[in-house]
């Protein structure tokens, strides 16, 4: 079928900010889709509120709207643009929900916009629980038996009929509050009684538990001609019970016979056909490990995280194909871009195994509940490719960057047997390592299987890995056979050295990584690179997409061109998000433009950078010294660029340089000068640049002494940190001692930094330097004062309240530091302004989180220019002048987005430690409007009237008063507990007193739960124990979707914004006679 000629202009909806459950995969999908549509000569209009994406670059679509994705804004854009079609399936759940809302509101019909790919009815049938079950019944597809009950007796009757265990899901409670798996009647009675109470409609769903079954997924595609294919199937190592986004997954499935594989494949095709989807779809199954019995768990009628993984795992670009299908093409007429000679209507076949491991934020959120269940908690994921499971999982583990490079977790050997057993039974993020630990203790595989329900096949592999560790340890001399076997199993040189040291003592040969490496190279044990080609070598492919393994034939051919390797940023985590992938992609493009062959190494399957079309060559490999060195040896580049891949790549700079690799851009010494506290202080002293007073301490006593000398409050943090990890403001000796006990292990190797905390305005600058000219695209002013991590602050460009003098100081300091560090490329500097004086807090000699935002609002292609500078091009020759780039007439606001609702027990208070997962942008002529767009885009519901609950710490009361008065004058009702209420009354405001938590119900939590308050303003009382009332108030707000403001700065900005958007900030003037 040829292209649908009625379509000329198409609207694509993106997925908005990065949150847990919706990450960079939709930038990848959206980017592919936009490119695919433009290729067809269609005019593409894009809306996405997330500025940190490649898809929102102006070259991706004909028109890009970085606006909130809600009914109001999208409708407005539709009326303005009048597109012929809307592609809703590439923007995750956000895009899909938006499309449904637009359709239901009648906007699409009114404006004559055709829904492409998936029809409304299909979305509804896949998403609505009842419609879905009805459809499955019609298709004769089994779903777990379930019933909706409103009484405990009803639940008991049903459970008796279907048998225990059953899952209880209270209706309409957030994050599954009050539900869970129950094993017997007693538990059921208790849980259902609770669940009915929690549920606003007094309902619970009782469902047969299928926990423990194999979880298998199929990625399916269909076109308008009813051609259907399966792109990939995947098997979860974690049985049903753990969200697939939190599961370790392999592709293809490993323990299904052809009959089982085909049975589920046929079921998937039946479902996509019944839903009439034109595009991609994901079907999740539970398969009984002891029979052919299976259940359909879920169907996603759109491109998903799994389809991004499937695309990277197979090389088959699902999103691109989905876009082509949506505009009328059929699979059999679309050429397979991988082979260039076969067509998209075929099923990719793999000759390797892919492993995906999620990346969880528990290193940042130490208080969070680490247990894995039906609520996804991972922020990102890594993928690795190998020819055996052992090789593949080993590569995935070392891609995680959690300080682990094999199946060995520090401290696991100290767990008691009972604890180990419990932790194996209730999965958390470390279970893979704990399984290995159990094998190390000699536990029987069958026992571990009984406890974990993990398939025998996977357990056997882990046991083999552990067993082989012993072989490496015990062999008297390390033979080439053992070395080769170890490499084929994915052991790193470092692991081999460690094991040799454990088995043979530190004085034996091959007990240092470098020795193993030298020995290995001497013996010619080197990896070869194989191509990912969708067809297991059946057809000739030209995809420059490689992975390493230890075998015979190397498929990489020498191009003879000059090459540059760009290191990617690995998995998305808090503090290192999609922003770094954005810069990486731009660097690669700039290199290609300049005529170099751009080679990328990365391991994140969600990203644009790992699309094999992005670079000249993609190595899907761990960002681990050994793996990176191997690629370098293979490619012989003129150098390696480390400044776009965040801290991941920066951390590799030193070992690479030591191994003789040329680091392009800012020199290693300069990186070190900026990152090493002592050297950095010396640098600032030399330049006579002020910085907050502080010092480095190596013992608790020294810490207390220093803090007293500086005067509380002080800012404490361990040295060499990422994203403000473990950084805190402490107000007293007591708090400091507590911090020293809980947050850090202080010793001379791990010093702690203590700075005077200056309660000032924070500003941030990104600059590009070619060694001569320092170009500052823009200065960003933070709404929240110092003490809130820059990544969690609302940033405004251009600055709204800075004096010319402050700006001049910032420009001057930035210029001098950039030059002194002999920066080649990007540098990011954070300042605090105190009494009109600018102090330097931090210098990051690399691309920062704000590069995409600033690039978009200033139109200065920052990563591109930085790359050119790295290649030796002078900014002056490109027409750029030293200093600040002219400020934009529009105001742009970057608003952070958090995923607190998904992370139980995490305190939503803004602190020096970064907590946000993503960002949105609001842009308008006026600050207030821009902020409004930003806040709305971030998901904040801002009613024009309503109630505010205020609980303010004593130290903040005075400041809060003025803000609350502002809200009061705007007509908001105030509610407060004891002290705060008294204060407000004294100030002449009417206030509704509410009960504290300790007082009778209804108390403050009940008010939040029942939706009587629209905003909660709560400032932190110290002590981080979750029992504290403030913590419970904040959590309650977050879990009920109530706006929770923990910084008075944010509250003030919101209040000012509301004032500006009103006709008058005063009470309505009354005409008096």
């Amino acid at each position: 079928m040829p292209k649908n000629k009625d379509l000329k202009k198409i609207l694509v909806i993106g997925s908005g900010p990065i949150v847990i459950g919706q990450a960079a995969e939709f930038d990848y999908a959206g980017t592919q889709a936009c490119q695919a549509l433009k290729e067809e000569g269609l005019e593409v209009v894009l809306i996405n509120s997330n500025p940190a994406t490649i898809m929102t670059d102006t070259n991706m679509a004909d028109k890009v709207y970085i606006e909130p994705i809600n009914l109001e804004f999208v409708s407005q854009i539709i009326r303005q643009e009048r597109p012929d079609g809307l592609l809703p399936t590439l923007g995750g759940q956000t895009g899909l929900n938006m499309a449904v809302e637009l359709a239901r509101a009648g906007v699409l019909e009114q404006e004559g916009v055709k829904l492409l790919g998936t029809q409304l009815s299909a979305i509804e049938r896949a998403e609505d629980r009842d419609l879905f079950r009805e459809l499955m019944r019609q298709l004769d597809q089994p779903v777990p038996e379930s019933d909706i009950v409103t009484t405990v007796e009803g639940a008991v009757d049903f459970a008796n009929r279907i048998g225990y265990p059953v899952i209880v899901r209270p209706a309409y409670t957030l994050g599954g509050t009050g539900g869970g798996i129950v094993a017997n009647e007693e538990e059921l009675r208790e849980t259902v009684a609770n669940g009915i109470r929690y549920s606003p409609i007094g309902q619970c769903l009782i469902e047969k538990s299928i926990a423990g079954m194999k979880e298998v997924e199929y990625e399916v595609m269909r076109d308008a001609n009813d051609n259907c294919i399966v792109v990939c199937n995947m098997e979860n190592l974690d049985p049903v019970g753990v969200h697939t986004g939190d599961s370790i997954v392999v592709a293809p499935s490993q323990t299904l016979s052809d009959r089982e594989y085909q049975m589920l494949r046929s079921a998937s095709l039946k479902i996509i056909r019944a839903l009439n989807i034109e595009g991609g779809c994901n079907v999740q199954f539970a398969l009984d490990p002891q029979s052919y019995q299976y259940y359909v768990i879920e169907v996603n009628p759109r491109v998903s995280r799994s389809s991004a993984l499937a695309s990277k795992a197979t090389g088959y670009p699902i999103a691109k194909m989905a876009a082509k299908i949506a505009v009328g093409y059929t699979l059999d007429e679309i050429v397979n871009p991988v082979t260039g000679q076969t067509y998209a209507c075929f099923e990719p076949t793999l000759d390797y195994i892919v492993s995906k491991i999620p990346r969880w934020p528990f290193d940042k959120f130490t208080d969070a509940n680490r247990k894995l269940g039906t609520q996804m908690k991972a922020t990102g994921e890594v993928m690795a490719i190998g020819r055996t499971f052992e090789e593949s999982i080993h590569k995935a583990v070392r891609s995680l960057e959690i300080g682990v490079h094999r199946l060995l977790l520090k401290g696991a050997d100290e767990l008691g047997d009972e604890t180990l057993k419990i932790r194996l039974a209730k999965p958390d993020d470390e279970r893979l390592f704990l399984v290995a630990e159990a094998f190390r203790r000699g536990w029987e595989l069958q026992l571990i299987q009984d406890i974990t329900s993990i398939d025998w096949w996977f357990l056997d592999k882990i046991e083999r890995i552990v067993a082989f560790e012993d072989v490496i340890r015990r062999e008297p001399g390390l033979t080439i056979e053992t070395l080769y076997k170890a490499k084929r199993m994915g052991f790193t040189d470092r692991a081999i050295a460690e094991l040799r040291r454990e088995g043979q003592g530190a004085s034996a040969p091959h007990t240092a990584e470098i020795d193993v490496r030298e020995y290995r190279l001497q013996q010619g044990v080197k990896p070869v690179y194989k191509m990912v080609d969708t067809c297991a070598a059946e057809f000739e492919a030209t995809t420059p997409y490689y992975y390493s393994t230890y075998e015979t034939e190397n498929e990489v051919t020498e191009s003879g061109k000059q090459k540059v390797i760009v290191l990617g940023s690995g998995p998305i985590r808090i503090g290192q998000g999609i922003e770094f992938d954005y810069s990486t992609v731009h660097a690669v493009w700039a290199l290609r433009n300049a005529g170099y062959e751009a080679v990328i190494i990365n391991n994140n399957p969600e990203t644009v950078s790992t699309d094999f079309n992005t670079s000249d060559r993609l190595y899907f490999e761990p960002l681990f010294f050994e793996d990176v060195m191997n690629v370098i040896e293979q490619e012989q580049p003129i150098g390696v660029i480390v400044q776009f891949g965040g801290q991941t790549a920066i951390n590799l700079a030193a070992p690479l340089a030591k191994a003789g690799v040329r680091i392009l851009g800012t020199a290693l010494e300069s990186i070190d000068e900026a990152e090493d506290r002592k050297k950095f202080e010396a640098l600032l002293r030399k330049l006579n640049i002020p910085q907050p007073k502080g010092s480095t301490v190596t013992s608790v006593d020294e810490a207390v002494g220093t803090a007293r000398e500086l005067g509380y409050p002080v800012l404490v943090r361990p040295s060499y940190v990422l994203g403000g990890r473990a950084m805190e403001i402490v107000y007293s000796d007591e708090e400091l001692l507590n911090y020293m006990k809980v947050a850090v292990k202080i010793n001379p190797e791990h010093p702690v930094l203590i700075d005077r905390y200056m309660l000032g305005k924070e500003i941030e600058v990104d600059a590009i330097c070619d060694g001569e000219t320092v170009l500052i695209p823009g200065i960003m002013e933070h709404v929240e004062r110092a003490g809130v991590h820059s990544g969690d602050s609302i940033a405004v460009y251009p600055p709204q309240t800075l004096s010319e003098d402050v700006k001049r100081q910032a420009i001057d300091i930035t210029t001098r530091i950039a030059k002194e560090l002999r920066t080649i490329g990007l540098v990011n500097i954070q300042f605090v302004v105190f009494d009109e004086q600018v102090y330097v807090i931090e210098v990051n000699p690399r691309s920062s989180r704000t590069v995409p935002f600033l690039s978009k609002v200033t139109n200065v292609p920052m990563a591109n220019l930085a790359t050119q500078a790295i290649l030796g091009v002078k900014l002056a020759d490109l027409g750029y002048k030293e200093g600040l780039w002219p400020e934009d007439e529009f105001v742009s606001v970057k608003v952070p987005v958090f995923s607190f609702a998904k992370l139980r027990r995490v305190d939503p208070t803004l602190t020096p430690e970064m907590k946000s997962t993503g960002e949105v942008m609001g842009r308008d002529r006026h600050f207030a409007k821009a902020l409004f767009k930003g806040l709305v885009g971030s998901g904040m519901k801002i009613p024009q009237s309503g109630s505010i609950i205020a609980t303010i710490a004593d130290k903040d009361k005075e400041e809060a008063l003025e803000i609350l008065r502002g809200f009061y004058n705007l007509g908001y009702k105030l509610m407060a507990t004891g002290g705060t209420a008294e204060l407000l009354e004294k100030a002449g405001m009417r206030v509704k007193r509410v009960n504290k938590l300790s007082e009778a119900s209804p108390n403050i939590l009940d008010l939040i739960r029942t939706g009587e308050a629209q905003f909660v303003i709560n400032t932190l009382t110290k002590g981080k124990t979750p029992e504290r009332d403030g913590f419970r108030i904040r959590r309650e707000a977050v879990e009920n979707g109530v706006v929770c403001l923990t910084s008075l700065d944010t509250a003030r900005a919101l209040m000012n914004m509301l004032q500006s958007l009103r006709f008058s900030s005063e009470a309505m003037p009354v005409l008096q006679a």
Partner: protein
Amino acid sequence: MQARLLLEDGTLFTGQSIGADGASIGEVVFNTGITGYQEVLSDPSYCGQIVTMTFPMIGNYGINRDDFESVRPYIHGFVVRRHEDIPSNWRAQYTLGHLLKEYGIVGISEIDTRMLTRILRQHGTMKGILTTGNERIEELRERMSVTPLLRDQVARTSTKQLFSSPGNGERVVLIDYGAKSGILRELTERGCDVVVVPQDTTAEEIRRLHPDGIQLSNGPGDPKDVPHAVETIRQLLGEYPIFGICLGHQLFALACGADTEKLKFGHRGGNHPVKELESGRCYITSQNHGYTVKEDSVRGTELEVTHINNNDKTIEGLKHKKYPAFTVQYHPEAAPGPFDNSYLFDRFLEMIREHKKNNLERPRQAQLAQALRGELQYAQK
């Protein structure tokens, strides 16, 4: 134990033995299926071939009683990157290694199977010798050059005895050229009364079975090695509805005057797209063939091309313009591979019913009575 695979072009792979001891010569081919190794191993169409699986880990779910496609494997060797010797699946009864040993099949693991596949793709399938012995390379080469590849695979794999699989439905005579069990399974599932006959059964013998339709099975090797089968089909054409699969499709084409040729490296796997020309629909099919019907040879015959491979555009399906007969190059019986094409068996049965309706307007009984009356009159004379 060590095992080695030497190719005709001189490439030597050294790995581990996973099967029987000894040496074995065959045509080295590759299959791209990820699952289905048991079905591949036991598919008689691989008779005389050394089969490489491109998926690196083979043996994961073991070997079970139910997934055999014939009573025994006929392959001459099995090549994998990694033999998974501790399987995990509820139906697994023993391991791949056991199976190979049980049937005296030589197997090798731990070699670069992707490299092997790339060689075969570039140079075409070729002869190879797989050995667990310590022979010198020259010796292996010598043995390989003096041993011709098999040409009698059909006779080797076909049933020696006629047997029946009774049912209450249409009677289908399945001519076994080395049939996969899947074909019989599909027919019996549809209630057919199936009589499986040896590959050299004559047309006369088949007529004696009074079939409603004739199923030509798949089978190994070059269709031109079984001229008698072509002749039989020619004699039966027009008389009975015919459905041919794989080798059966090629033999049918030859019987109708078309020609066949060898493909460079064949189609073996479960992911091949086939386009049905009439509907424009594309189907994912299971395939296993080294020969194909020559496209230009169809011209001038009474055959019509119904299906083509959407990748290399080779012929995948034919039908006779005059008679009720159609054939496909691929495997609608799946096993291994997708079930998407089993509708072809339904189509076959529809064709049979249609044929009956058209040709038996007068009830069978009347015909019989008339014939008997004639005989009676003759006797009375």
